[in-house]
């Protein structure tokens, strides 16, 4: 059972894609764990996720803290702090 990852703003630019399907191993249980695991996928991922304190996340279109559990998540988005309005 895989996950849809979405990336926005400079996270998207550094990763080099706005969306990808991933299939993390059992041990990856939180957003923070997912970010760490994703960092190994490419230099772009590593650059995007180098400073977790600058990252924000949403699980299934709801903002969550980085220590939120993934259980049951279908869509996880990683992005910088929002700057709308």
């Amino acid at each position: 059972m895989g996950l849809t990852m979405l990336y926005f703003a400079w996270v998207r630019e550094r990763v080099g894609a706005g969306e990808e399907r991933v299939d993390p191993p059992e041990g990856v249980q939180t957003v923070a764990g997912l970010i760490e695991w994703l960092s190994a996928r490419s230099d772009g991922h590593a650059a995007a996720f180098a400073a977790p304190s600058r990252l924000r996340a949403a699980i299934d279109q709801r903002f969550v803290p980085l220590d939120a559990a993934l259980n049951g998540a279908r869509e996880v988005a990683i992005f910088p702090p929002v700057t709308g309005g």
Partner: protein
Amino acid sequence: MIRVSVDPAPIALGVEVAALEEGGAGGVATFTGVVRTDDGVEALELEHYPGMTEAALCALAEAAVARWNLLGVSIVHRVGRMTAGERIVFVGTAAAHRREALDSCAYLIDRLKTDAPFWKREWLAGGTRWVEPRAGDEEAAAVWS
């Protein structure tokens, strides 16, 4: 009446205000964000999270309706590329009395800054840069919780 829109087309302020005024309210308060012409920014690009954005704006409008006695709420956010002087965002509220309209309008724009998934990129003569969140935005939003 709740109207929420996320659209690459220019914001038609007259249409939005007319919809708020038609509700029979005594007062309509609005806030419009405009691309500033001062600091060398030639254009602004707004990226967002389709689906989540609309849901976040609807939730915000519903929270305002639950908190104040409102006859109408409009939230319109432009996305894509826009140039200096163009409208980025419009929030408007209609109520029988001015305090409810004024307070809920301020609430909506303060909370929108932190609660909706938009990202701004500025186009300058020398290139582009992603806008960093302003230090005061978190505190301004927290005032309402």
